[in-house]
């Protein structure tokens, strides 16, 4: 099955957690194909797979004229999707805070735009970076965190900052009578 036929499914996957969740659900679905509990294959899809994945899978099977009762064909297409998911490349992002869904969507589209549609994000939350992000992709490491910028700033402007601090200490220590 050509990869572009799964693009509607892959576009829904943003993070490695999503990949893991979908892969686990696909495995549950595959193992349920051989159990007889009175449910049809589409019903099992609705029960065991995430709703958007089930919807996209049914649509893909219709376009490919695959009979849902043919277990081997269903197994083949699900296996191909699973293989595609396992081969996705990972871009590691370290953030200072847990992003809301809107921000996550924006970040995901940026990642897919710059690193390819076959990438997913692995997000780690480390408040110590204060802000920005640390990106690791294809063996490259880019630190665009706020902490790094502040470290550089403090290193370059060390002397000025020291003078600023000592001046402010001096002005605080002036007698009260002088302040009007």
């Amino acid at each position, binding site marked *: 099955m050509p990869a572009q036929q799964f693009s509607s499914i892959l576009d829904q996957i943003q993070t490695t957690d999503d990949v893991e969740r979908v892969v686990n659900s696909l495995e549950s679905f595959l193992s349920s194909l051989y159990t007889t509990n009175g449910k049809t294959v589409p019903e099992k899809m609705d029960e065991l797979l995430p709703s958007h994945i089930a919807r996209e899978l049914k649509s893909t099977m219709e376009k490919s004229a695959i009979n849902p009762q043919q277990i081997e064909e269903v197994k083949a297409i699900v296996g191909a999707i699973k293989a595609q998911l396992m081969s996705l490349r990972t871009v590691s992002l370290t953030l200072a805070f847990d992003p809301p869904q809107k921000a996550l969507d924006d970040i995901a589209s940026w990642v897919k735009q710059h690193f390819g549609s076959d990438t997913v994000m692995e997000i780690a939350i480390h408040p110590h970076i204060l802000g920005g992000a640390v990106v690791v992709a*294809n*063996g*490259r*490491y*880019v*630190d665009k965190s706020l902490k790094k910028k502040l470290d550089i700033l403090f290193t370059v402007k060390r002397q000025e900052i020291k003078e600023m601090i000592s001046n402010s200490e001096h002005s605080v220590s002036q007698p009260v009578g002088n302040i009007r």
Partner: protein
Amino acid sequence: MNTFDHYLQSVGEIGFVDDATESLAYVSGLPGITPNELVLFETGEFGQATYLMEDKAEILVFSKYPIDVSTRAVRTQTQLQIPVGKEYLGQIIDPFGNPVDKIRPFTKPTETRNIDTRAPGISDRVKINKVFETGVSLADMLIPLGKGQRELIIGDRKTGKTNFLLQTVRNQAKKGVVCIYAAVGKKKHDVKVAEDYFKSNNVMENIIIMAAFVESPASMIYVSPYAAMTLAEYFRDQGQDVLLVLDDLNTHAKFYREISLLGKRFPGRNAYPPDIFYTHARLLERAGNFRIPSKGAHVENNPKMNENGVAITCLPVVETVQGDITGYIQTNIMSMTDGHIYFDVDLFAKGRRPAINPFISVTRVGRQTQSHLRRTINRELTSFMTLLERIENFAHFGAETSSTIKNTLATGDAITSFFDQTSEVILSEDLQTFLFTLIWFGVWRGKPTDSMKADMAKIMSYYEAHEDYRKQVAGMIEKADSLNALLTTIGQKHAELLKTAGVNQTPTQPTQNPQPIQIAKTDQKVSKGK
């Protein structure tokens, strides 16, 4: 080396350990990694990239324990280097320049050099023209060596190879040569014995012991000879002759085999990797006699240095099993060295010390460094020893022997007794020539060898203690342009010289014409020269 974070920020590449075994780690990522580049892990260990695959790199890790999977790694953009400097003299260090013990005060040198470098070409080399004295009379007289020569020391275990090497190192260190003893995969006790020997003879200040113990990681044992050679090259570039002992290359080959098999290299003969020859050849080719760079104060002070060259003399050691010198590693090293000194287990069993077999031993370039006199002595002695061996085989049958053969056997006993030398005794070239000429002249003819040994001991101790005696002997040898001339001089002066040294001798009647024994052809009887 800088910190992990420093390299992460400056290089901007990161890798993750996917798989690890002892000595090896497989790292994905690091897209710009180059062969032999140094890689630093976040746990502080480091390694060298040995094999680059499409999606990962094989790293030779210098750590005793495997690296954990998912450990991060960074490139350092440098090759494996060690610090080099005079600060190491008198120290025992590991292959990365760290002192093994913390007892001696130590300042780490600031200069570093790559461990793996290319051997100099022909235009950078000078003909070997300086004598290399081991201090062992059997080796110096029958298997002479030159400075810059690579001479293999080969023999079974426990045949006296290390004792010979320690004597040689001690002799060279006393002459001011920088000596580096590389213990490759040795026990700590063996290294301690070597250290104690050097200390007790007050030569440790010119010696560096580089030790990769048997319990060290295989990777560290693998790089130790290269690190020792790098240190030798540093001193060579300072204008100092260096002696480098690699003890031993069998162990080095075994550990390299282990690493290669773990790295799934296709095994060759005896399961060694196909590049085992190259592994040793690229090491030994870095030794020799070199033309040093024209700039530098040491050259300006000694303009002849570029004419005579500065030498790294290398004595690699290889063990045999039951005297078999046809093994794979043994023949490899024999083909890439300038000769070999063979320690015979049968001679060792007979009590000969050192147990060197001069008939199987070879020196390819040592003779060109000898004076005319020494070359003549070498030729005479070699012919005599060959004849002696044949006569001894013949005499075993118990047949009646003529007086000539008896004399030859007696002289042979004297020569053999002269060559028996304990590890505490070191003889200079002049002293060897002097004592040999006394024997050849017949000073101790008809006397038991014990008496001869006692007299020799007196001469040796007097010689060591009195500079004027040494000068007298040296002058006598220098004036002699042939062995016959020297024998004539000995004939005139031997009584006075022996008396000065405290040896009581009845005056020896010299032979009518003090000619050396003429060696007849195999099927002819031996007769004295007329």
